């Protein structure tokens, strides 16, 4: 065996007094229904699924549940969960010299063979460094010896791995279900780390920063599940004791999105769209409800109403949920194909608020971003909803999209006002006041989108636009929620970061940054200091990139060609929209994977 800790790992001891002194101690005690405990002595590969955020967020992540069940279904492997301790627990752990531990068996993180982090959000990177440090591990991969576990990372942010290239031993680009078995098979050989990494580097979808050269051909191509119907799903998801963010049975209806909104990274990196059949989904729903006892089920996908079997699926799901007093919710609805019929269905058991994301306030700008939704459609949707007795509506927009002018910002307030008027005309069935909320986030240019070359607006511009909208909505007496511009600015810097920026991430963590995604802990000044000390001019990262330059993530191949992204960018500037994948194939390149909607099309 490669490692010094042969046989039984000693569980970490956590005194009751420590747990009594922290908020929600059940974040750290494990033992939930459907959690899996295996004997460490008889198991070959010990893998820890690590989520760099607090329990309630981590447990709401569907991908983690999928990996957990796949790994634990193997006789030769085990998977346990390790999440970021909240700051109170971190303090107690450091004071009492308690290392980072797993929830299942309280095994020290450093006793696992491999720690696998999921990168859902750039602003969780400092938490990864902090978790490694709490585990007693060096944050830079080159400083970690043979006695320390391998550190890998996957998830959407792994598509631009460079900011963490000095930290992570290997990245998995794409969908984890596909290659996890190959990774476990290699880890099971118990070779030296350097030998393991060489073998891993030859596997499709795996990027090993210590081995791969970014100029190498062929590029590192993402891996994906060709047929979701034959992909495993967790039949017995873990049921947390405490309330989590998504405290319900989650159903992934399809992966990818047919739309191609030009700002949306998920819309490109998860191409092509692959759907599950209603049969498969009903089987999955039944098993998950039986095994969890949840009283709520939710369809989760990038744009649920685009599912081709939605009518059949909701009808059959309602049969299932009605009988059991279970609530059904359909998030991610689009305002253009929303029907009264569908709405009647979802309100049959429990009625929740409606959320729509027009993203931009004027038709011109919606055309620029390829959000193919018209004002007419949105007003019609509002009318249907209000006539149907809905009284709560949330509207999501983005500020700072490419080509945005103050006229477009004003368009947000105008649209919200029209919706408010619609309620006065059609909505006073229940004599209840409309609860309308407008929320804005700032546009963050993301790798692998047609807007990957765009600049992010500067902080003064952010403040100006937000203030302008704030005043307009205040006059109209409409509730307004906004994102912190400092955090969006930081996200803009890290999202298109490179290896050099990674040094600033480490520096920021050294200065005490963690839980950056949480307003109460985000420390903009420390981040700015870290950038300054690394000699980084932030505008290099937030500014416009030239179309000729080599982008830090260009060595990764997502199937969609760079040329296609460029064409889409040009169309954006001409206010020209693109068809969605179901209407017409635009030959983006994703057909190279040999599955999904690209082929349904050719057959049809």
């Amino acid at each position, binding site marked *: 065996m490669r490692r010094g800790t042969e046989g039984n790992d000693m569980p970490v001891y956590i005194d*009751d007094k420590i*747990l*009594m002194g922290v908020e929600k*101690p*059940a974040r750290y*005690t494990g*033992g*939930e*229904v459907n959690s899996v405990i295996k004997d460490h002595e008889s198991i070959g590969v010990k893998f820890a699924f690590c989520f760099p955020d607090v329990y309630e967020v981590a447990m709401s992540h569907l991908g983690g549940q999928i990996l957990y069940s796949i790994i634990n279904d193997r006789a030769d492997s085990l998977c346990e969960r390790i999440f970021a301790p909240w700051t109170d627990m971190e303090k107690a752990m450091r004071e009492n010299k308690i290392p980072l531990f797993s929830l299942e068996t309280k095994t020290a993180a450093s006793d696992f063979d491999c720690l696998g982090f999921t990168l859902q959000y750039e602003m969780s990177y400092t938490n990864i460094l902090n978790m490694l440090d709490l585990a007693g591990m060096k944050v830079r991969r080159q400083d970690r010896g043979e006695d320390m576990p391998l550190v890998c990372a996957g998830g959407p942010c792994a598509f631009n791995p460079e900011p963490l290239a000095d930290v992570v031993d290997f990245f998995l680009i794409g969908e984890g279900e596909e290659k996890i078995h190959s990774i476990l098979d290699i880890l099971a050989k118990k070779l030296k780390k350097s030998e393991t990494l060489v073998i891993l580097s030859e596997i499709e979808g795996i990027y090993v920063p210590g081995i791969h050269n970014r100029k190498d051909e062929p590029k590192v191509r993402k891996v994906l599940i060709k047929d979701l119907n034959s992909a495993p799903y967790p039949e017995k998801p873990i*049921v947390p*004791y*405490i*309330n989590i963010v998504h405290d319900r049975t989650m159903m992934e209806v399809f992966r990818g999105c047919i739309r191609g909104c030009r700002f949306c990274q998920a819309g490109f990196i998860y191409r092509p769209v692959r759907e599950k059949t209603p049969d498969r989904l009903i089987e999955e729903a039944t098993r998950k*409800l*039986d*095994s*969890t*006892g*949840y*009283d709520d089920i939710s369809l989760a996908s990038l744009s649920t109403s685009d599912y081709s079997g939605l009518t059949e699926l909701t009808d059959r799901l309602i049969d299932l949920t009605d009988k*059991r*007093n279970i609530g059904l919710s359909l998030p991610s609805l689009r305002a253009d194909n929303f029907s009264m019929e569908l709405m009647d269905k979802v309100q049959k058991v*429990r*009625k929740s608020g409606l959320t729509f994301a027009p993203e931009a306030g004027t038709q011109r700008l919606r055309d620029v971003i390829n959000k193919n939704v018209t004002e007419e459609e949105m007003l019609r949707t509002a009318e249907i909803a209000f006539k149907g007795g809905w009284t709560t509506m949330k509207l999501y927009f983005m500020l700072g999209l490419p080509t945005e002018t103050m006229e477009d910002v004003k368009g947000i307030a105008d649209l919200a006002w029209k919706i408010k008027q619609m309620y006065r005309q059609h909505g006073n069935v229940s004599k209840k006041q409309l609860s309308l909320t407008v929320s804005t986030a700032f546009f963050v240019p993301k790798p692998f989108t047609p807007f990957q070359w765009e600049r992010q607006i500067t902080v003064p511009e952010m403040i100006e636009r937000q203030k302008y909208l704030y005043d307009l909505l205040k006059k109209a007496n409409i509730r307004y929620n906004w994102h912190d511009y400092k955090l969006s600015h930081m996200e803009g810097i890290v999202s298109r970061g490179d290896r050099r920026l990674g040094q600033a991430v480490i520096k920021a963590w050294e200065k005490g940054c963690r839980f950056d995604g949480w307003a109460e802990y985000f420390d903009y000044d420390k981040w700015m200091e870290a950038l300054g000390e690394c000699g980084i001019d932030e505008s290099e990262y937030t500014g416009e990139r030239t179309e000729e330059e080599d982008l830090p993530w260009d060595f990764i191949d997502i199937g969609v060609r760079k040329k296609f992204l460029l064409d889409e960018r040009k169309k954006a500037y001409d206010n020209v929209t693109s068809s969605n994948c179901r209407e017409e194939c635009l030959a983006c390149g994703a057909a190279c994977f040999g599955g999904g909607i690209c082929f349904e099309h050719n057959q049809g």
Partner: protein
Amino acid sequence: MSTIRVKFRKGSEVKFISHLDMMNTFQRAARRAGLEAEYSQGFNPQMQMVFGAPLSLGFTSEAEYADLSFAVEYDPKFILERLGRQLPPGLELLGAAKRIVKKNIMADISYTEYTFTISGAEDIEDLAELVMSYESLPVEKVRKGKARVVDIKPMIVRFYTKGNTGSLLGAGGNEKNLNPKLLAKAISARLGRDIEFININRSNQFVERNGAMFDPISTEAMETE
């Protein structure tokens, strides 16, 4: 339609699960067991379940109770077996019986008994005897942000210590409730030193019938008002 009272153990595996989360855990277990529960009316239908007095976070218990209402008639033995199988480690059903009395468990409990380990009183020969010799035992109680001084002496029915272990039988339930932590605080204040009760376990809860104490799941408790 039937209401079944269950008695259960809350072990150290789940001692950091709050009262509310434990209720949720029972609801999910009942759904996994495929039991037809009675639901509340209204916007957000909830299973009809009434639990006894909340147990403080960090305490274990050998005697927790819940009244579970079902839409159909179930044999208590069937519930014991079916629901029991779906509960996570640490939550263990100890008994089940059909409730005939009207009063629910929350309203019916009168006394609770705890056992614990005492730390900080090693040099006192008989702590209980000393404490019981006091006329009164005032302690500051904070409730809803307001502090007030209460005398908890009348709430003690029996306090017994031997070596570093102790047991306390006191008022329990909706109106008056004596938490052993509060007693430790009162003793510490009185003696001017830190005395702590640790490993606190609720060993019994009682209802009162004709001046006598009974286990809430006993025939006497369930069939007489």
